């Protein structure tokens, strides 16, 4: 049993709490917004100039001038602020956001990670990924544990072009949650049916097992009907 993309997003959302200022990257990370505890006030940052991104607008409530970083229309949450690029990147690079949730191609045991240059993509594009990575104190990675071909993505050293060095704090995969610590990688949770040895078998870098290691507890289906495990 492993997590779906929604399942990874759901699990990350459980670790975000009131007062967090969070940037959600493309891919699995943007799904996190669907699973946040709406009784808590969590500010979502969009690098094109919003702090306090609200839900996707419905029907004819679309404002053509209000888009988020994914270029889809959005709304504003209570207490939101609008600003330009220089302020937006001050928030990112200046360490003001509390969390950035980003996808990755590879994460290394020292916290290096690679996510901007997709193998096989002939035209490179980096956007704000490197600025987020050097700024936010909590870089959370959301990704599958292995590639489509079964190759581990948590590695001893990245081979793909780096996004930033030594910045990842925690990795959420479809299989496990792994912390990056000064002493190396620490396995905190794994999906039912995958003991530490099974996770290690799919991980290139050595994993220590946390003293409070536990089975991940994720429901089958989310409140919005999305399948969380498969």
């Amino acid at each position, binding site marked *: 049993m492993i997590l779906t993309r929604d399942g990874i997003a759901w699990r990350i959302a459980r670790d975000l709490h009131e007062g967090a200022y969070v940037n*959600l990257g*493309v891919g699995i990370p*943007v799904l996190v*917004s*669907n699973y946040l505890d709406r009784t808590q006030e969590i500010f*979502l940052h*969009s*690098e*094109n*100039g*919003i702090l306090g*991104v*609200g*839900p*996707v*607008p419905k029907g004819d409530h*679309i*404002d*053509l*001038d*209000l*888009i*988020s*970083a*994914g*270029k*889809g*229309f*959005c709304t504003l949450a209570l207490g939101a602020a*609008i*600003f*330009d*690029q*220089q302020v937006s*990147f001050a928030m*990112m*690079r200046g360490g003001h956001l509390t969390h950035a949730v980003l996808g990755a191609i590879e994460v290394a045991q020292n916290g*290096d990670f690679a996510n901007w*240059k997709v193998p096989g*993509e*002939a*035209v*490179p*594009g*980096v*956007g*704000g*990924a*490197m*600025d987020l990575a*050097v700024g936010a104190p909590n870089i959370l990675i959301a990704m599958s544990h292995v590639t489509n071909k079964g190759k581990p993505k948590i590695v001893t050293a990245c081979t793909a*072009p*780096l*996004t*930033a*060095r030594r910045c990842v704090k925690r990795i959420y995969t479809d299989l496990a949650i792994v912390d990056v610590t000064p002493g190396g990688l620490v396995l905190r949770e794994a999906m039912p049916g995958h003991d530490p040895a099974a996770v290690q078998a799919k991980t290139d870098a050595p994993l220590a097992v946390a003293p409070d290691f536990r089975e991940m507890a994720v429901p089958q289906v989310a409140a919005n009907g999305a399948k969380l495990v498969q």
Partner: protein
Amino acid sequence: MIDKTLSTCREAVSKVFDGATIMFGGFGNAGMPGQLIEALREHGARELTIVSNGAGTGPFALGSLFGDGLARKLIASFPAPSAAQFRERYLKGEVELELVPQGTLVERIRCGGCGLGGFYTPTGVGTELADGGEVREIDGREYLFAKALRADFALLKGHLGDRFGNLMYRGTMRNFNMVMATACDTVIAEVDRIVPAGEIHPEQVHTPGIFVDHVVQVERLPELVKLPKPGAHA
């Protein structure tokens, strides 16, 4: 009486010369000067260096400049997979790409606009975008040197404008428009509405007129308002 308004985009872009470097405001369609870009395409200046966050998202607007073969270089952070016209030229080797992390791009433009020579950023240190760059340790952290960036022209989009060149944006239109307005020799803005002097409250002027040379009122073209699928990003 100061009057920076012009009646057509054609007139506004008429001084753009072959080989010019041009900054384009906008992130997605918000704050993207679609009508000025169309006038520029018709104007036909060639060998342009384009400074923009991306390279467009289809055959219109920025995409049309690449489609028509008017650009020789792009300085950008994110030429998206949907920027087909750019990508085709780039892969043929007809257009050069200088890829810059988005925050570094913003800051280089800001430096150019505020008279600074360059700055040190932690962004990109240890990555291949730093290759050949100068790295300096300041208070125990490594930073990469980046140089100010200026251009000959800026094409921008505001919501309201007045005869002094004051601009006010709406929603997420501000994006790159505000910094780019400060960093170009000639700054041209299209706006949804030119309002009488004094109608934009002094505390709501986002780009003071000192930075702006020409303002043109345009109607939004429906084809420039591409409707993305809701749900792409919350």
